[in-house]
């Protein structure tokens, strides 16, 4: 009779997928985690990763500015780019990440067809995000923004890779 012996060091643990909902943010320092957010339309997804501290975070913002509804911003700060990314940076610095090490990658900010698209939510989400990061001395390393695709964004904590899946194809940012 064969006996299966499990040795802790040899057990391969499967990766844990952590879903970031619309208007949410998740941060982790676990190398086995994969942060993922689905259905990025005009919303923007931002990943911040500090390879030295081993800390990564992902946010999925719906709208650019919290001033349209301060009460909602209080309840759901990650809904808006301005309050959401500020809170994300605060949490990352608290956890030990350093600004100069942060690698920022962005996906989303799409828009429906039509040159004269009325609401321009995607475009404004991206503009406010870029401006906010610039003011905080963080440059966007890579991005996949605009167009009519719906995107899924992943941050693989094992090696800090960020990938984007759309229309059945996954590519590294």
């Amino acid at each position, binding site marked *: 009779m064969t006996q299966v012996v499990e040795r802790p060091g040899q057990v391969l643990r499967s990766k844990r997928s952590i879903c970031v909902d*619309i208007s949410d943010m998740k941060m982790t320092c676990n190398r086995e985690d994969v942060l993922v957010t689905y*259905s990025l339309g*005009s919303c923007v997804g931002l990943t911040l990763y500090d390879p030295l501290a081993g800390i990564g975070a992902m946010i999925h913002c*719906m*709208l650019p500015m919290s001033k349209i509804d301060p009460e*909602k911003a209080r309840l759901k700060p990650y809904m808006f780019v301005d309050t959401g990314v500020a809170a994300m940076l605060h949490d990352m610095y608290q956890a030990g990440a350093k600004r100069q090490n942060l690698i920022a990658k962005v996906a989303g900010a799409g828009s429906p067809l*039509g040159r004269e698209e009325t609401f321009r939510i995607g475009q404004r989400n991206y503009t406010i995000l870029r401006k906010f990061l610039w003011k905080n001395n963080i440059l966007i390393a890579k991005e996949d923004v605009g167009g009519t695709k719906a995107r899924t964004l992943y941050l693989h904590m094992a090696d800090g890779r960020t990938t984007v899946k759309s229309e059945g194809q996954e590519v590294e940012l």
Partner: protein
Amino acid sequence: MSERENILARIETVPSLPSVVIKLRQYLNEPDVNFDTLARMIEYDPGLTANVLQLSNSAYFGWSKSISTVKEAIVRLGTNRIFQMVLCMSVAPLVRKPIKGYDMDSEGLWRHSISTAICAELVAAELQLSCGGEAFTAGLLHDMGKIVLGTFVDIDDSPIKEVMLADKLAFNEAEQMVLGIDHAEVAAALLRAWNLPDHVAEAVRWHHQPSLAPENQRELADLVHVADILCLDFGFGGGADGLSYRLDRSASERLGLGVGVAEKVGAQVMIAVTELNSMFQTVREGEGNGVQHSSR
């Protein structure tokens, strides 16, 4: 038989709406509505009664004292909310399924349908539109054509996507090119087969081309159009079609909908959809109150 004729013929195979939905609609349009009569219409179906009571008592409404009868639910929530509940529970078994032809998981179309319904109702209230009474119904049912095409006809979306990308078309325009019909027209035909009012079917028919809607029914078509696009924009459900639809700028201009109100409503929809979703999680599908396979 052409592909278009084949698709329209398949509408006959889609289960019909429970008769209680049509009866409630007709009764609620009468000048004097009696709550006892209304309650009896719902109580005729024990499964529906149980679900109405379960939903009415969910944390979403936050009652301190629980609701024990359908009449009490009608009094506390109002006839409009009760009808919306019954409608949602009736279509849920059809909508909460993966839609293969559109690459949607089991929650994709459901999430998009309820968010569009809520968004249309909120925009109508914000702008005080006269068509507001039908906003929820038209918003909820606007994409039912995707169920017919994606499930009952089982379309292959690859040629549609190829045409869309090659000719830079919107997804519905590519459907028209490949199939000879789009999901909006199919949805309108289904709604008519379900005996829903003509103005709701017309709004759904033109939800991607609201400027082509008959003038007296254009406001509802405009409303569903902008609610649909905003919900796709915000990522409330979506599939292979992504954001590949054309926003008709004149629709938002006719409604008087600016970016400020659109964003404000978007934030409200986000909160409401999360709450409604958790509320509906408690109701299991098809407990004697969903769409019925009947010989029509």
